[in-house]
């Protein structure tokens, strides 16, 4: 049954206005995001010309090329490095986020500011700084040598370890912030209730805090994993020639090998991978949020 109210008349100018307000954003996303995305998908099915360039003929060769073990290895290594980065961020970020969430509001502000301060400096500059720290004659090696902990310098730079260090450093705040938001909402009396009901400290964490913080854990893991998987600056600078991630491969195909169709195909595979993982983790999150919204 439809009932119309006199107020309804005011709705149409309001609706027109809202379209105008949406316009710039839609235009921006459409022209600069959606159209290029479509172009990438189209190019991924095209062929490479003899001297670079694109030959507009439909083929699946680019995708079939990707089945080559070399590409599979780079993809596998990228996933491994991104997963390792995510895990390290989670392990390091959780206690920090928990501590901040339990601090007084005044101290919370200070801590959150400290977490975000690195963003004030350019990411490239900060990554160069890591090169100075990790090099053979760098800060870390000099320190370890002086302390007598090592006899000869350790080769840290240009390795997977260096890449993971750089990625963890860069993306830790993306883990801490959603975790903090989730943990801050966990009612403190629930922790007391669990404690009162004979739970040990570990059980309180495992049975109460962790399940309630799950949306934050999921969000933090996605926010770290996705950019880590596609990272190319950090592996380029800290990983050198030995550590190539899928982001470097895409960059290489587009800029060095000038094989745009293959680069586009790799990009599409990466996107599908990310979308698939997001869908999976959103589904993993739903049971809890559905429960929260019911009633």
């Amino acid at each position, binding site marked *: 049954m439809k009932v119309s109210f006199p107020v309804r008349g005011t709705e149409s100018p309001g609706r027109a206005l809202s379209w105008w307000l949406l316009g710039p954003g839609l235009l921006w996303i459409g022209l600069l995001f959606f159209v290029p995305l479509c172009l990438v998908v189209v190019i991924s099915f095209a062929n490479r010309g003899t001297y670079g360039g694109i030959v507009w003929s439909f083929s699946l060769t680019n995708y079939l090329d990707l089945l080559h073990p070399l590409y599979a290895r780079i993809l596998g290594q990228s996933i491994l490095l991104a997963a390792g980065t995510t895990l390290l961020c989670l392990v390091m970020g959780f206690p920090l986020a928990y501590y901040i969430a339990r601090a007084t509001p005044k101290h919370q502000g200070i801590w959150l500011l400290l977490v975000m301060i690195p963003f004030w400096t350019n990411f490239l500059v900060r990554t160069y700084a890591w090169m100075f720290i990790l090099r053979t004659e760098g800060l870390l090696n000099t320190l370890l040598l002086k302390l007598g902990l090592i006899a000869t310098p350790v080769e840290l730079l240009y390795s997977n370890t260096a890449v993971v260090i750089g990625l963890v450093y860069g993306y830790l705040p993306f883990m801490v912030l959603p975790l903090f938001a989730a943990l801050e909402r966990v009612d403190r009396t*629930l922790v*007391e209730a669990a*404690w009162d*009901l*004979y*739970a040990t400290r570990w059980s309180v964490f495992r*049975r*109460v805090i962790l399940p309630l913080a799950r949306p934050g854990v999921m969000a933090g893991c996605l926010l770290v994993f996705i950019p880590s998987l596609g990272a190319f600056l950090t592996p380029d600078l800290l990983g050198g020639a030995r550590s190539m991630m899928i982001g470097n491969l895409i960059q290489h195909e587009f800029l060095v090998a000038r094989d745009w169709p293959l680069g586009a195909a790799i990009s599409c595979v990466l996107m599908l991978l990310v979308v698939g993982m997001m869908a999976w983790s959103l589904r993993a999150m739903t049971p809890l949020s559905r*429960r929260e919204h019911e*009633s």
Partner: protein
Amino acid sequence: MVEQSASIEITSLVKRHGATLAVDHVSLTVRRGEFFSLLGPSGAGKTSVLRMIAGFETPDEGTIRIDGRSMETVPPNRRPVNLVFQSYALFPHLTVAENVAFGPRMQGAPRNEIASRVRVALDMVKLSSKEERVPAQLSGGEQQRVALARALVNRPAVLLLDEPLSALDQQLRQEMQVELKSIQERAACTFVCVTHHQEEALTMSDRVAVMDQGRVLQIGSPQNLYESPTSAFVARFIGISNELRGIVRRIDGERAVVQSPDLSGDLQITLPIHIPVREGNVVTLLLRPERLRLSTAAQGLNGEQSLAGSIDKVLYSGSDRRYMVRLGERVVWNVRVPNDEFGRNGLSRGDAINVRWQISDAVVLTE
């Protein structure tokens, strides 16, 4: 007898919050199997006492013994007590059954034993039909029952309740008062309940400790507290009380002639034998509204005392009327009489009247 032995013994408990004494040398004994309430206004320190029994706060001085065992070094998860939180603190991500099973699971009880204990506990609070729901799908009263079941399933030596009924509406609260008492009897468990609601404390408790500003003022049965308060605070806090302050001018056998600056004439009161009073003492006379009678006749019956005054205000409340009787410049007493006492329309404002009471009904406090 078992009932008479002590379940909780608290000796000279002190808790400081900064410079203020939140709990000021509290000593009390809770007997096994009784329903004991800590009653007082907010900030009286009653919740602090409860949290120290549960182990969430550490006493600055004094000891707490539960079943004869000192709790000094025992963390909350090792104490034989369970707390029902004011906000219930149910785990939102667990079902009703999982919430109730939490305690036994943490204690490592076998799976089939947990299942049967959960069933018994949910039966006790009449919630068996909702065991698969999550807390957000329950009403406030049902959440309260789950919180009770989750605590009782552990068969604690003492169940602690922090303002258990404060989040419920008026009608539900009265139902739950009766319910809580019968659950306590069925579970045969010692209950220690914190409340600021005097009616709640009186109807449910076997004994009540009245607290104010960190101190215990009086411990006794509801009847004892109501009829023989030892301080004006207790008298005022537990029900409406009429007061009159005065100075003892003369002692005449067991009678004292008291002069109150608020009254025009002297008042002769007969003192209870156990209260020693001397000339010059300041005394306070306390009387409950329902212990007073109104009469137009000046002469009272034997054993009665009376004061002359006039009706100041009439409050009609269905079964009875409350008259505010002005006895002096600053003294207005509250008198409750059955509705038909003075004809259909009762007394009206300005009528001259005498307030009477049995000598033995008056409580006399000395300062």
